[in-house]
């Protein structure tokens, strides 16, 4: 007789295969990580430059510089870059983070030469044409104004500002007027200083053979020797002396956006893997304490979660949700209640076991296939670590016990140390 009440036999996740990259350098000394695997003839190529938000003297410079790279270069107009990439069925993405700028190319292997040619010109010889810059700025202003109508954006910005402080690159908010201060010459200076061959790292993943590595040499090493010494980034002086609770009113909001959190530490701290487990229990997956209470039990929200983030200089802990505006205070109370429970009671063994399996399952997904693997590797490589970090992660996840969860919750999640931001009603 089929017993539908009983879960079928299953195995604990024993081994997770971490496919190591080949670590090498181009002839001009650019560090290169190669992941040669996968079933399809496709390539993902990431360029990472030390040109993140932390490097800018005023708002929007770092973002505008990376965005404008594709708007015109020595060999190709913006139109030709777009046409050329689109015709190959390729994709180019330019993005900015607090600590770095990233340019990603996706292409079929058969079109690599042409795609690399276009990409190379945007990275080495962008022109920052005035006309395209004006259009870009106008568009960004529109987008900014739209974003400012969203409670989520208002809460996020205030959170960063309160967490890191108003006057440093991590916490400083952009304003509408800042857009009008951007011009070609400022961006050119920023580019010259930061987008040099010696401030760059490359990750390539997919079907990577000699033909491809030769192309990398051809386009990104030969005659590319720009050099610039970047100063040590001043320590972000983080102070939480100021007011820790903020409310931003937004007329007519049906929902309020809530952010709670604090400065924590980054991946280099030995407690990081263990805190990831604590975080997962609290709010890191669908079955978390926060989801079960605030969504599944109370129905206050469509989603609530927590995370820990790792930056070059530090890290932080954050709880985020958009909730029914009538229940913002109740939500905050329930969040604090859940943290307190973790601090006072041991979680059931079954629950910890489940979280461990979930986290190991997530890691399997995060290293499955060349593209996921290269993203996962990027996270650690930029902090001067490598995939062996994940061995430590796996060990910690497997060995952590319920007492550790309680101790770490007490040590690092003191409720009085959390800043509170509500935007809405």
């Amino acid at each position: 007789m089929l017993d539908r009440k009983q879960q079928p036999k299953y195995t604990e996740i024993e081994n997770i295969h971490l496919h190591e990259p080949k670590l090498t350098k181009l002839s001009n000394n650019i560090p290169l990580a190669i992941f040669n695997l996968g079933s399809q003839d496709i390539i993902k190529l990431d360029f990472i430059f030390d040109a993140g938000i932390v490097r800018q003297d005023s708002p929007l410079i770092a973002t505008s510089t990376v965005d404008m790279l594709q708007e015109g270069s020595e060999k190709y107009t913006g139109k030709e870059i777009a046409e050329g990439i689109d015709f190959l069925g390729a994709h180019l993405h330019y993005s900015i983070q607090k600590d770095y700028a990233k340019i990603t190319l996706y292409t079929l292997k058969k079109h690599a030469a042409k795609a690399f040619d276009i990409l190379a010109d945007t990275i080495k010889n962008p022109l920052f044409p005035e006309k395209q810059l004006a259009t870009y700025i106008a568009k960004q202003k529109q987008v900014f104004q739209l974003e400012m109508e969203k409670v989520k954006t208002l809460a996020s910005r205030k959170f960063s500002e309160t967490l890191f402080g108003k006057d440093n690159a991590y916490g400083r908010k952009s304003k509408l007027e800042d857009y009008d201060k951007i011009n070609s010459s400022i961006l050119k200076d920023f580019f010259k200083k930061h987008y040099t061959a010696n401030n760059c790292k490359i990750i390539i993943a997919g079907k990577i053979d000699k033909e491809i590595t030769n192309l990398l040499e051809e386009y990104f090493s030969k005659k590319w020797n720009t050099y610039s010494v970047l100063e040590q980034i001043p320590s972000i002086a983080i102070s939480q002396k100021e007011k820790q609770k903020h409310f931003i009113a937004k007329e007519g909001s049906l929902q309020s956006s809530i952010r709670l959190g604090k400065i924590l530490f980054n991946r280099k701290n030995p407690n990081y893997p263990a805190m990831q487990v604590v975080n997962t229990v609290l709010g890191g997956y669908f079955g978390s304490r926060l989801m079960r209470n605030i969504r599944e039990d109370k129905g206050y929200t469509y989603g609530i979660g927590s995370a820990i983030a790792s930056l070059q200089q530090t890290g932080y802990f954050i709880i985020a949700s958009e909730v029914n505006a009538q229940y913002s205070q109740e939500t905050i109370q329930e969040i604090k209640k859940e943290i307190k429970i973790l601090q006072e009671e041991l979680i059931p063994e079954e629950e910890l076991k489940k979280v461990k399996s979930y986290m190991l399952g997530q890691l399997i997904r995060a290293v499955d296939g060349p593209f996921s693997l290269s993203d996962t590797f990027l996270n650690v490589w930029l902090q001067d670590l490598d995939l062996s970090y994940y061995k430590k992660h796996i060990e910690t996840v497997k060995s952590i016990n319920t007492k550790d969860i309680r101790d770490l919750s007490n040590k690092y999640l003191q409720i009085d140390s959390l800043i509170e931001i509500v935007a809405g009603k």
Partner: protein
Amino acid sequence: MIKFDKFTLDNGLRVIVHKDDTSPIVAFNITYNVGAKDENPKQTGFAHLFEHLMFGGSINIPSFDEPLERVGGSNNAFTNNDITNYYETLPKENLETAFWLESDRMLSLAFTPKSLEVQRAVVIEEFKQNYLNQPYGDLSLIFRPLAYKKHPYQWSTIGKEISHIESATMEDVKDFFFSHYAPNNAVLSIAGNVETEEIKQLCQKWFAPIEKREIKKRTYPKEPQQTEYRFLEVERDVPADAIQMGFHIGDRLSKEYYASDLLSDILSNGKSSRLYRNLIQEKKIFSELDAYISGSFDPGLLIFNGQVMPNKTLKEAEKSIWEEIENLLNNGLKDKELQKVKNKIESSQIFANSSVLNKAMNLSIFETLKNADIINQEVERYEKIDESFFMENAKNVLRKENCSTLYYRSKK
């Protein structure tokens, strides 16, 4: 070429198996042939509410997510106007858990009052978060009944209004389940390092004992051809004017559909597209402008959606779109323009094939639509569209009488 095996159980469940030995993860996907179009017009938002209820516990298993998390699995689901789709990814050693979970909730849900109460509240929050509390959030809700007068596509998956969700009863919920959720109304698709024989055995064990059910017949009306231009104007508290224009196109498997998809790509896919270059970059009439097709099974829409720059009017914005349309229809395609969008389609397919989840989902959805092998015919169907058919379809679709326009005015 995506190779797969297909078989059907006695109870009507269609099963597709695709072997991919490059991943330690297996993707398990079930598509039920029920969507928002199957709802009673006075009880909309139901199929989607139902999707939520499917996670509230089934007859033998009180929690869906927990046992899955226990085995390192992950899951999600989505509903649209045509289908409801559920999927899990898990380490291949623990595949049987997915069989156990999905077969039990196909057998029957737990139907607890608490589950209905909570998911009702959650869905209402989702409605607010995505449709009411966001600038432009209700645009799609307003637009649909403008373009569709008879067909159930006139309402959105989230529902026409919150009150429909608020008044759903347990009786309604049970009735909906038993008239739409059944093995004979579903397709199961599995992709990963698996063998068809082992899948057959697992299906026999877990799904074969579930009996066929009588599925509510689809009797909704076809949308009659639109014969004149439609226009609606609303005012909202948003920072900029927006415009949406929709044109009727062919059904999902018609030759016209593929030509319309290429048309939307030529208009707005990527930075070399016509709308981006001409109306955003050059003329600076829009800060955002997109053209896309709805992708629905029954005849859908080709939609233009854009946000107007502050110094331009909605009338100018609409006029500029018609001018772009005229330019295309009168002057035809530029050299290599059609080949470019075909290349993009081919490339998308190849990238999609690198994911077991994408493959499982596409096989399942195509089988629900008509048959799974369409996954291998798609690129060819796009390739076959030549310039003359492309233009013929464009001329037929982009007519004023076939157009519904919404001006979404900023109160500022």
